């Protein structure tokens, strides 16, 4: 169960709401348990679980009920367990997450698997069943889009929060 947290945070960003994400992770773990004889020892168990999760996601995410459910529940309250210590940080985290959610599904999946989960590009290529060059280009486009979304508006660069953004997304002239 050590990877449940990692699966859930990725599923949460893919599904857009907690209920669907929990159902997706539960189904992933159940399918992994049933197919454990297919797991090859000395391979990355985390990558194997993410393969199952992404397969399930690909099986279901184009079904209208999943999209509808996400739309219905978009306005759910944020988690009570969010651990950011003050309201500024919470707002800041919310903004970064909103920018991540604006990425295309393909870009978001690659960004989460590589940056947050630390999987190798080769593993991600196997999980998503695409060439590694596709993974690299999706990652590059995701990072460029994220920098663009996070770029603070001119004249709003006074606070610590804006400085954090500015540090990460300075324009190309540096």
């Amino acid at each position, binding site marked *: 169960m050590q990877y449940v947290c990692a699966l859930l945070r990725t599923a949460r960003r893919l599904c857009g709401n907690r*209920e669907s994400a929990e159902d997706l992770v539960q189904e992933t773990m159940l399918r992994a348990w049933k197919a454990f004889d297919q797991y090859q020892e000395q391979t990355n168990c985390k990558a194997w679980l993410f393969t199952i999760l992404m397969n399930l996601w690909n099986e279901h995410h184009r079904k209208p009920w999943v999209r509808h459910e996400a739309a219905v529940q978009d306005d759910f309250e944020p988690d009570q367990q969010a651990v950011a210590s003050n309201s500024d940080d919470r707002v800041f985290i919310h903004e*970064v997450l909103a920018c*991540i959610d604006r990425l295309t599904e393909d870009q978001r999946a690659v960004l989460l698997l590589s940056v947050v989960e630390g999987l190798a590009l080769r593993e991600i290529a196997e999980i998503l069943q695409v060439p*590694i060059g596709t993974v690299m280009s999706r990652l590059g486009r995701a990072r460029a889009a994220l920098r663009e979304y996070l770029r603070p508006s001119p004249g709003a660069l006074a606070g610590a929060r804006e400085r954090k953004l500015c540090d*990460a997304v300075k324009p190309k002239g540096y």
Partner: protein
Amino acid sequence: MRCREAEGLLAPQISESLDAATQRDLALHLDTCAACRARLQQEYELDRLVVAAVTQEAPATDDLVARIEHAIDGSRRRQPLFFLQRRWPAFAGAAVVVLLVALAVSRFTAANSMHLLCQDAVDDHRTEVVLHEPRHWHTNSSDIADLVRRTVPGTQVPQSVAGLSLQKARICGLLQATALHLVYGNGSQQVSVFFMLQRELPSDSLPSQAAANRLHEETDSGIAVASFAQDGMGVVVVGGPEIAPHVADQLALSL
């Protein structure tokens, strides 16, 4: 290496996956180019922001782990006997034959999408309500009211019907359609009511009047299905044969 070439390689995940020669070229370029070093720093900062946001927002998993363990326990109890596992190819082949025959028979018996929808509703009721397969339910009355308001706006869903009170609610999928799944019950029996949110029930199966139309009954297993249409929205009721039709009749009149 020039800045333009280096630019596409600066993302940490990409630079780490480069071959040794390209990594050496990139390192040499970074030694001499302050602008690319600054850009590399920005890439790391961007990663730090993303990781911080996604991991800090991550919800608690205690309840989910309990649900998963419960689901695995249930699945373990339903595992086939060992000798069946050993002979799975023969059983799989037999199952395929049976399925093909059943499919052919079902076509001849005019099984339609409504029938499949009802079957799916029966399956959901059996696994999630009768067998208590773990799912995320809204049980608080205000949460249920909020979910109802957002999914079937304008519909006055009763708090009790046919002596059963509204107990819990969740969004679910029936075939490829979204449904609001409500459970009414008392101490001894429970009835599922599915409001189809995205797709109307097949028109060839819908009654024109408001009275509930019993489409399908499984009296052997003690489960009955009734359905009706209200303002173009399909409603499917699943429960015991002695109560489900009454719930459907009352809902058809009260909605």
